[in-house]
């Protein structure tokens, strides 16, 4: 029968959080040691493209502790991360944390706006496609999933920015209203692919639930159609939709690089691209780590709240 002792629940939570911590640890190790995959001496790699003075070279050697053994270097770097110290950016002569911190709000706003579009329109279209049927939604989903954000950016900019002049084509804007105005086209460009994927999952999950006997049972009992759809079909389709949406988060974050570059915005994504171009490896490392961490944390949270969406998994744990 039911086992709902708080003790067991917290054991499951602890195990999930422990798995998350170990994944993050392995990830940080992979990202840190990737520097040693690069051909040649790591120090030479770090200063490639610049001509540092002997003092700067010594500072880099000291900062990365190349005089110390590898495990010690990793440990120093890791404890630095935990204190919010991601090292120094060569390109921008500032701490990586402050460089990223100054660009994070704009990127978060872009991602938040795109997420709203993805969830509202994606789920909405999926529900529409499942209930009203028709080939239209299927075609839209197949095409939408194949529209990369750079294609969407080019077309949106060209039509609504240049041809019609409704939206600014470049920059981030100042003040919340202006920022939103600047953000709308980029957010749409960012959202299209992911929206199509969410639509597709929602539609498939809804169609599957619609064919279930429990839906026939409440229908046969005379429950109004809208209540059947909302309280039984959509409610039960939520599980796969949430799971897939959580998996999309990392792709969404990386795609900000494309959209911010295309629209000339100053965000974390465009920072990643310019850091690669300027061989600013500490910044690249930090951004990669943040994206992976965001993915791991979001998916752990979804895992932890999933029993609320589908109580059957509580028994399976």
């Amino acid at each position, binding site marked *: 029968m039911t086992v709902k002792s708080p003790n067991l629940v917290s054991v499951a939570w602890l195990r999930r959080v422990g798995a998350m911590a170990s994944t993050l640890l392995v990830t940080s190790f992979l990202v840190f040691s990737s520097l040693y995959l690069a051909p040649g001496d790591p120090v030479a790699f770090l200063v490639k493209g610049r001509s540092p003075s002997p003092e700067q070279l010594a500072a880099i050697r000291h900062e990365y502790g190349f005089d110390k053994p590898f495990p010690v270097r990793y440990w120093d770097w890791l404890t630095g991360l935990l204190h919010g110290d991601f090292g120094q950016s060569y390109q921008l002569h500032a701490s990586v944390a402050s460089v990223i911190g100054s660009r994070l709000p704009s990127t978060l706003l872009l991602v938040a706006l795109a997420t709203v579009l993805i969830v509202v329109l994606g789920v909405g279209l999926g529900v529409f496609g499942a209930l009203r049927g028709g080939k239209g939604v299927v075609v839209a989903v197949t095409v939408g999933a194949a529209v990369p954000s750079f294609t969407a950016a080019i077309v949106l900019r060209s039509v609504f920015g240049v041809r019609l002049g409704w939206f600014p084509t470049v920059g981030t804007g100042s003040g919340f209203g202006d920022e939103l105005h600047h953000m709308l086209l980029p957010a749409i460009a960012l959202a299209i692919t992911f929206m199509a994927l969410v639509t597709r999952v929602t539609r498939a999950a809804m169609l599957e639930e619609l064919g279930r006997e*429990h839906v026939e049972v409440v229908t046969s*009992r005379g429950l109004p159609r809208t209540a059947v759809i909302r309280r039984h079909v959509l409610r039960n389709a939520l599980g796969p939709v949430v799971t897939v949406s959580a998996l999309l988060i990392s792709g969404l974050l990386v795609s900000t690089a494309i959209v911010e570059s295309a629209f000339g915005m100053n965000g974390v994504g465009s920072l990643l691209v310019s850091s690669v171009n300027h061989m600013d490896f500490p910044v690249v490392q930090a951004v990669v780590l943040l994206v992976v961490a965001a993915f791991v944390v979001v998916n752990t949270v979804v895992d932890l709240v999933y029993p609320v969406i589908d*109580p059957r998994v509580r028994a399976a744990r």
Partner: protein
Amino acid sequence: MTGSARAALLAVDGLRVTVPGAGRPILDGVALTVRDGEAVALVGESGSGKSVTARTALGLFPAGADVSGSVVVGGTEVVGAGSGALKRVRTADAAMIFQDPRAGVNPVRRIGDFLTEPLRRIRGESKAAATARALELLGAVGLPDPPRHLRQFPHELSGGMLQRVMIAYALTADPRLLLCDEPTTALDVTTQAEIMAILARLRRERGLGMLLITHDLDLAAAVCDRVYVMYAGRIMEAAPSDVLIAAPRHPYTRGLLGSAPPLTGPLARLTPIPGAPLGLAETVGGCPFAARCPHAVPGLCDTTEPEPEPEVDGDSMVACLRAAELGASLIEETQGESS
């Protein structure tokens, strides 16, 4: 319907359901009646159309089907009915108990939500009133701890307990007609008897009419007043239970009786019906049972469709071209076996 003493709860007449691409109709000329307080069984092999027939009473038709004929439930015509009439039938006149309770209860909602939902959403009862009613119904179907069950999820209950929940759910409609679609098939043997006992008691206490769908002719005869036997979407024979068991008039009914293990006596007497039930893709030109019938006459049974022949009392019918000539010999066969 004026001829009978009791009013008809369910009156099906000339019901024909076809889906494109199938070789034969799913239902063809089905006619049956369930009167107030009466228990009627609909018996047949899987695929014979018995579940489809029961579902039409609630306006649930197969997707893409063409439906003609008449299904009147509590005085309301269901075929071609608008949403208002359908809602009246579903919320007040008839309720269905399904075969597999595991599949029939929404797995992600609590039992309490499941039971109070129709009371609150359809009848507009308050939360307290709906909960009180749900508790009362769970007690009525014999569940041991109603307050606890309300908080439980379906996966926390056994199949037999869930089927009781399903019965309680059907009772939230205060229906006058219970449609039971093989309510015990998915359960284990001891639970089957309990569920049938609960249904019998509820029927007695509340004076409910019942249409029992089953493939078990003995169960049907034991529980119900009258039995309809169905094959390949048609009614083959109908009769009061004792008459049907003692004196079957259709070779198919006779075959069903012969293929069930007797409660007493040696098992060697079992004679399965040869062949397989007619698939939906197959076409029929004559009696659908002709190919499997030991009494079929080539050139007659496989070419001429038997017309249903009602008896004078209105409770019996048989659809067999050779019913009259076979009559006595079929009864002899049956009695010879059960002696």
